[in-house]
């Protein structure tokens, strides 16, 4: 019964997600350069998001999974353009002073 309710894949995925959060703490515990720190954060956050998407949100098993991938990619494109476009305009010297 316990084995039926706690599939190994879910348990492993959960433990892995906790591990990823611990790995991300490295950036606080050690004195890393900004580039090294932000790289670690980007990698651990993206792996975490992928874990949720494929393991828990069952995106693969959906009959329309191609549509879903396209929708997610489009949303990510909009999101990244929003974030980096804003930083480009407000911080990285696009504005003429």
């Amino acid at each position, binding site marked *: 019964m316990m084995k*039926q*309710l*706690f*599939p190994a894949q*879910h348990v492993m*995925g*959960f433990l892995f*997600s*906790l591990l990823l*959060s611990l790995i*991300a*703490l490295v*950036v*606080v515990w050690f004195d*890393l350069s*900004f580039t090294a*720190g*932000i790289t670690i*954060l*980007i990698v*651990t*956050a993206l792996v*975490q*998001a992928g874990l*949720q*998407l494929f*393991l*828990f*949100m*069952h995106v693969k098993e*959906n*009959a*329309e999974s191609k*549509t*879903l991938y396209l*929708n*997610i990619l*489009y*949303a*990510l494109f*909009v*999101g*990244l353009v*929003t*974030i980096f*476009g*804003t*930083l480009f305009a*407000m*911080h990285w010297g696009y504005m003429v002073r």
Partner: protein
Amino acid sequence: MKIDHTVPMEYSTEENKMKILGFWIFLGAEIALFSTLFAVYFTLQSNTKVGPSATDLFHLSPVMIETILLLTSSFTIGLGIHAMRLGLKKPMMTFFGITLLLGAGFLGVEVYEFVTYISEGATIQTSGFLSALFTLLGTHGLHVTFGLLWGGAIVAQVAKRGFTPETSNKAFIFSLYWHFLDVVWIFIFSFVYLKGLMG
């Protein structure tokens, strides 16, 4: 209504499939919403001439507690959907119940955080950094609050009606919402808190 028994019950009718697809499209819009809030935060995070900076304000332990609570709740709702697919009503309701309790725990810690910030004189009106911070965290917290009400209503429906194409569809869609909030939190945890504590 044609019921397809070869797929899990939440996908079993044409309407159910459309609702799941529609919810994914809604989550796409949510990605756009949170992106705007992250963009504002990244733009204003160094506007701290008045009031504390991220490094002064943030403490690791409450943030770790929030992260563990939300990651665990994402796991338990996954187990809830797994139990639902096995047709096990009681375990499903138990896992959903645990999920909502963990969500309430998360909110409790977040409220405690907000009260601490405000008692240190860091309010939403203090600086650009804090306005952006409270807006981003508050929008996520509001989503979790709404999720508690929504999830509670679904548990009540499953208790009353059992697993039907309708209730299983609602439960599955709610699980998508909950996992999505966990993903948003991972980004807040990484790019607001840990990045802030990096100094």
